[in-house]
C-alpha cells in the first residue's frame, strides 16, 4: 500500500494535479455554487465549463511550447504574436461581409494556419540552422509579429460579421459542449498519438537531453528541433483562430497578448523541466487548466482588479515553490530530522 502511495506521490503529475485540486477546493469554500452546472439554451453553463472552455487556447499553446522546450531547452516567446498574425490573416481573408465570406471558410482558416506554420519555419530556421538562442531568435517575431498583424489589418480591428464565424469559439448547434474544448482535445490527442506511436517522442527527448549525443547515434538533431518549432507555430495558429472566433474579430494589439508567458508557466506548472529533455504533455495540459482555473476563480471570488495580479503571483509562487527540488530536499530533510528526534525521544 505504502509503495503504491509512494509511486503516486513520486509521479511527475502528482504535484500539478494537487495544485489544481487545491485551487478548485478553495473555490468551493469561497463560492459554494462554483461546481454548479446548469443547461442554458441547450448548452452547459457554469464556472467549471468556463474554465475548460477558456483554457482551450492555452492548452493548445502549451502543447506546442512543451515540444519546443523539450527539444531545444529554450522557449518560444513569439506564440502570442504568431496567434495574432494567424487571426489577422483569417479575418482579412474572410472579410467583414455579413452575407458571405470572401474566400471559403476552410480556405481562410488554412491560410491563417499556414501563416502560423511559416512563422514556425522562420523560428525553427533561426534556432535549428543558425543556432541562435531560442529566446533571442523568437524575440524577433515577438516584437515584429504584432506589427505584421497590424499591417495585415491596416491598423484597424477587422470584424467578421457572418455569424457562423463564431461557431469555432462558441457552440456548434445541438452540441452542449463549447467547440474550443473539442479542438483542444483533438490537438492533445493527435500530439500524444504522434509522440507515442512514432519514434518522434523519443527523438525529441534524446535531442533535448544532449543534441550532440543524439546526432552521434544518428538522429538529425537540427531537423527535430526545426520540426518542433514548426509544430509550435501551427499550435499558435490554431489557438489564434479560436481567439479571433470568440470575438468574431481580429484585434491585432490584444489577441494572444501575454499568452507566451502563460504558456511557459503552464509547461513549468506541469512539472516539466525548462532545461529540455523529459517532458509530459499531460502535465502541461493540467498546468494550463490550473492557470485558467485560477483566473476564473479570482473573478468568481470578486477580487478587485487592482489586487488580481497579486493573488495570481502568490499562488504561482507557492505552486512553483512546492515543485522545486530544493524545497523537496528541504522538506524531506525536515521530515528526517523530525523522525530522528522522535526516535531519540522514545
Amino acid at each position: 500500500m505504502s509503495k503504491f502511495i509512494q509511486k503516486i506521490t513520486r509521479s511527475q503529475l502528482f504535484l500539478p494535479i494537487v495544485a489544481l485540486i487545491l485551487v478548485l477546493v478553495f473555490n468551493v469554500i469561497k463560492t459554494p455554487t462554483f461546481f454548479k452546472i446548469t443547461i442554458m439554451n441547450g448548452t452547459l453553463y457554469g464556472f467549471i465549463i468556463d474554465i475548460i472552455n477558456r483554457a482551450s487556447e492555452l492548452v493548445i499553446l502549451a502543447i506546442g511550447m512543451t515540444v519546443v522546450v523539450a527539444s531545444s531547452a529554450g522557449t518560444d516567446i513569439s506564440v502570442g504574436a504568431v496567434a495574432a498574425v494567424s487571426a489577422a490573416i483569417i479575418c482579412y481573408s474572410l472579410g467583414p461581409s455579413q452575407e458571405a465570406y470572401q474566400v471559403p471558410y476552410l480556405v481562410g482558416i488554412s491560410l491563417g494556419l499556414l501563416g502560423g506554420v511559416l512563422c514556425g519555419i522562420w523560428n525553427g530556421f533561426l534556432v535549428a540552422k543558425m543556432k541562435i538562442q531560442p529566446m533571442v531568435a523568437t524575440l524577433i517575431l515577438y516584437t515584429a509579429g504584432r506589427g505584421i498583424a497590424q499591417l495585415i489589418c491596416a491598423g484597424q480591428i477587422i470584424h467578421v460579421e457572418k455569424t457562423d464565424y463564431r461557431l469555432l469559439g462558441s457552440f456548434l448547434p445541438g452540441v452542449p459542449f463549447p467547440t474550443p474544448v473539442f479542438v483542444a482535445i483533438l490537438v492533445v490527442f493527435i500530439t500524444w498519438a504522434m509522440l507515442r506511436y512514432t519514434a518522434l517522442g523519443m527523438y525529441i527527448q534524446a535531442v533535448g537531453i544532449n543534441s550532440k549525443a543524439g546526432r552521434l547515434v544518428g538522429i538529425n538533431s537540427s531537423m527535430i528541433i526545426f520540426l518542433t518549432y514548426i509544430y509550435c507555430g501551427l499550435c499558435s495558429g490554431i489557438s489564434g483562430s479560436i481567439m479571433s472566433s470568440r470575438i468574431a474579430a481580429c484585434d491585432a494589439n490584444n489577441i494572444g497578448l501575454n499568452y507566451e508567458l502563460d504558456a511557459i508557466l503552464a509547461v513549468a506548472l506541469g512539472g516539466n523541466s525548462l532545461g529540455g529533455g523529459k517532458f509530459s504533455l499531460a502535465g502541461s495540459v493540467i498546468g494550463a487548466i490550473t492557470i485558467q482555473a485560477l483566473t476564473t476563480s479570482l473573478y468568481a471570488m470578486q477580487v478587485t482588479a487592482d489586487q488580481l495580479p497579486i493573488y495570481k503571483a502568490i499562488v504561482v509562487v507557492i505552486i512553483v515553490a512546492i515543485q522545486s527540488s530544493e524545497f523537496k530536499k528541504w522538506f524531506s530533510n525536515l521530515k528526517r530530522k523530525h523522525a530522528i528526534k522522535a526516535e531519540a525521544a522514545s
Partner: protein
Amino acid sequence: MKKFVSMLVCVLIFASLFAMTVSAADLITVGYAQIGAESDWRTANTESFKSTFTEENGFKLIFDDAQQKQENQIKAIRNFIQQEVDYIVLAPIVETGWETVLGEAKEAGIPVILSDRQIKVTDDSLYVAWVGGNFLQEGYNAVEWLDGYLKENGRENEDINIVLLQGTIGSSAQVGRTEGVEKLLADRPKYHLLAKQTGEFTQAKGQEVMESFLKSYDDIDVVIAENDDMGYGAMEAIKAAGKVPGKDIIMISYDSGRRAFEKVIAGELNVTVECNPLHGPRVAEIIKKLEAGETVDKIQYVDEGVFDIKNAAEILPTRTY
C-alpha cells in the same frame, strides 16, 4: 567664363533656397508625436489632425507614429526640436518621464500642447495646454443618462443592480470614468454596484469577465463598460446566458465609434457615451490664439455627447470613425 557660370549657379541655388524658406515660413510647422495606430479611436484622432493641419489652413504637419513606445516619442520630439518646428503636439503614451525632453523643447522656445492623455510633471510650464476628454464628466454622463432612461420607463423606484467593466487599471480613462460613475452611484441609494472588474479595454476580456459576473449574480440590471469593445464582449456573454442585451440588461458603453452607433440602432446597446477623438480643430484654435499673442486655458475639454436610440440614427451618417 567658367567661374562666372559657377557663381551664377551658386547664386541661383541660394536664391531658390531663400525663396523656399520664405514660402515655408508662411506656414506654421507643427510636429505631432502620436502614440500609434492602436484602435479606431486613435485612427480617427490621427485623421482629425491630418485633415485640420493642412497647407490650405496655413499649417505644415510633421506626423510621427511612435508605435506604442515612449522612447520613439522622445526621439520624435528631439527631431522636431532639431527641425525647428513652431509647435509640438504630444499624445503621451504614459504619464511619467517627460521632464527632460519637454525641458529641451522649452529651452528651444517651442510650445508643447498635449492631446488626449495627461502627464505628471513637477513643472507645469513645460506645456502650454492640454486638450482631451473629460473622463470624470463621462462617468457622470452615464449615470445621469441612466436616471433619465429609468424615469422614462417608469422604473425609477426599482432597485437597480449595476456591474462595471473597467478599462486597463491606472489609465486615465479608467480612473476618471470609474470615479465619475462611483461618485454618482454613491448618492443614489436605489443603485447598487454589485461588482467591478477590469476587462482591459478588450472585447475578449470583457466577455470573459461578464461571463463570470452573470454566474455570480442572477439579477444584473445594468452593465457599464468603459469602452465599446468590452461592451461588445459583454453582449456576447449575455446572449450566451440566454438573455437579451439592451432589453433584459441595460447596456452602457463608452467611446461612440461607428459600430457602437449601429449597435444602438439595432437595440443591443442602450447608450454610448462619447469620448471625442477629434482634437485637431481645438488644437488649431489654441495655436491660432498663441500666434495672435493671446493666452489660452491650460486645460481644455472637447465637447462630448451621449448617444442613444433617440439621436443615434441621425448622427451615424456624419460619423467618420
